[in-house]
């Protein structure tokens, strides 16, 4: 079982490296009209890095889920090829971030083997998570991008705190709900056919709701706000099994978001662009419209790697045909160059990651592990939904990154830490599932 699990991971990493090589080869073939062996070298580098990580996992977490790492490596490969095709130097940065992310991934596994310790420091973790979330509003280090306060810049380093605080907040919520789920269920009353949580335990729910509304106003980012709150509702649902709580929560979010969308100018503007992009097609609506045109232009199979247009040819000064192609609209570029099939492939990767993640939660043997795995999976998938939904005009476009694909150090590094936690939970759960004694005990009751 043990070596089998890891062998499957190794086997899955080979096609991932092949895909990266093929992607680079296609880009080179297009750009310089020559096929060198550079793509093979890049592919070999990539495979070597993945192999090193794989060997580390073989030693440290022999029973962890075999497909989570290859799936995320595949997303990274997508990102590297696409970013390289946009700008070589950005791709070099991204590759460095990828390696740094894997180092942090290894460190997390090394030092958080007993991840229950996180439960003990949950209030500290929550406080740090919220503090760094607000850091972008601090004068001097805060950075405002397109009206939203998302980045922090200290000297040459800049990072997006929301990427890290999402993990902190999930850890806190998992721990909090593990302890309080019983009271939330038992104290629930039915009023007019709706099961309401007990009033005094309703407090924390209001706090989380307040926090996400606060983010909407303070950081002015609908995407992060939605991401955090949806992850919270997913956790609440899994912890209590009460669908009515989720409905109440969603209603609260919609009311709050609607209120702020009509009163806060920045949020209002985002919603306006979303609903009526043609009011200002060369200004505010430009990005979303170009994003949709790029996707439509891709057709079924796309134009091929390196063949999509990102900048307007011959324009002086250079003008972007697809603004923020390496971050916000990278998904549109993938659709443009690989078509509907490529797009479905990317979405399938996220779906499979979500499936594997929830599987980890199903197998986990204690409440905290279950909720942690659920929360991490939920926040990761919802992030993908928020940005893919944004560029396809399902929801207003916001500056959330496409996990592992978009250019950005914080995003890559934070998501590898998230993966490390998920694998830690998975390793323990699967090891315990193999030993029948623990399993029978867990099944005997109910």
């Amino acid at each position, binding site marked *: 079982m043990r070596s089998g699990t890891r062998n*499957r991971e190794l086997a*899955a990493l080979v*096609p*991932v490296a*092949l*895909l990266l090589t*093929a*992607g680079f080869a*296609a880009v080179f*073939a*297009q750009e310089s*009209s020559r*096929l060198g062996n550079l793509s093979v070298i890049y592919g070999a580098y990539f495979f070597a890095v993945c192999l090193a990580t794989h060997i580390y996992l073989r030693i440290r977490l022999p029973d962890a889920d075999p*497909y989570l790492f*290859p*799936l995320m490596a*595949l997303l990274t490969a997508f990102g590297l090829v696409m970013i390289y095709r946009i700008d070589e130097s950005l791709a070099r940065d991204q590759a460095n971030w990828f390696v740094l992310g894997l180092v942090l991934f290894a460190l997390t596994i090394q030092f958080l083997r007993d991840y229950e310790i996180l439960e003990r420091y949950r209030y500290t973790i929550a406080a740090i998570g919220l503090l760094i979330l607000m850091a972008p509003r601090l004068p001097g280090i805060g950075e405002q991008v397109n009206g939203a306060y998302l980045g922090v810049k200290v000297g040459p380093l800049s990072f997006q705190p929301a990427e890290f605080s999402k993990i902190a907040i999930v850890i806190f919520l998992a721990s909090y709900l593990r302890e309080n*789920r*019983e009271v939330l*269920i*038992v104290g*629930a009353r*039915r009023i007019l056919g709706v*099961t309401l949580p007990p009033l005094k335990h309703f407090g924390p729910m209001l706090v989380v709701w307040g926090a996400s509304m606060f983010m909407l106003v303070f950081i002015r980012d609908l995407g992060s706000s939605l991401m955090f709150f949806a992850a919270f509702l997913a956790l609440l649902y*899994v*912890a*209590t*099994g*009460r669908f*009515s709580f989720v409905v109440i929560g969603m209603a609260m979010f919609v009311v709050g978001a609607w209120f702020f969308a009509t009163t806060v100018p920045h949020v209002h503007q985002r919603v306006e662009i979303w609903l009526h992009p043609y009011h200002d097609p060369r200004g505010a609506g430009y990005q979303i419209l170009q994003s949709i045109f790029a996707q439509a232009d891709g057709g079924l*199979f*796309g134009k*091929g*790697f*390196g*063949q999509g247009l990102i900048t307007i040819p011959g324009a002086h000064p250079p003008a972007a045909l697809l603004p923020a192609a390496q971050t916000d609209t990278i998904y549109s570029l993938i659709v443009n160059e*690989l078509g509907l*099939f*490529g797009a479905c*492939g990317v979405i*399938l*990767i996220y779906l*499979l990651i979500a*499936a*594997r993640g929830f*599987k980890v939660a*199903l*197998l*986990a*043997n*204690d*409440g905290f*592990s*279950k909720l942690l795995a659920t929360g991490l999976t939920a926040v990761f998938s919802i992030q993908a939904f928020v940005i893919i939904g944004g560029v396809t005009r399902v929801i207003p476009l916001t500056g959330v990154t496409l996990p592992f694909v978009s250019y950005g150090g914080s995003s890559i590094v934070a998501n590898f830490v998230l993966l490390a936690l998920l694998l830690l939970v998975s390793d323990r759960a699967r090891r315990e*599932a193999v030993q029948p004694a623990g399993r029978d*005990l*867990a*099944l005997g*009751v*109910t």
Partner: protein
Amino acid sequence: MAYDPISVALKFGFLAVLYLFLLVIARSAFKDLRRTTSPAPDATGFHSAPGFAEAPGGVDAWLVVERGGGLERDQRFDLIGGLSIGRSKDSDVQIEDRYASGLHARVFERGGRYFVEDMNSTNGTLLNGATLKGEAELIDGDTVQIGDTEFRLEVQ
């Protein structure tokens, strides 16, 4: 554009390998799922799935089905976190009993002792055959009757 055929071949090759890869992973995920799915003994929600049962403190008391309610005789429900009993889907112990209310009664632990409380049900709850008013303590072997459904408390 001299390399166009190569680009096209690479593109389709890429998509083909991508989908094959995803297919293999999806298939193995399905296989995994079939192998590890344990029959869910109740349909009341995830919260009573195995795992949550092992909350700190351990399980030491159960509500055991004696008869009725559309439940299997000797089916056990652990008391960790308390149990709500009723006809509604939201109850921890969902019973099919025409005399039961949506949320009929609850059984819970407090300070190492066990209690049953009638939640203002229409037809009432019987504790060892006598009508229960408000809440009352339960000891090992006590029976709780709701309509035609009967439970027994079992303490380890």
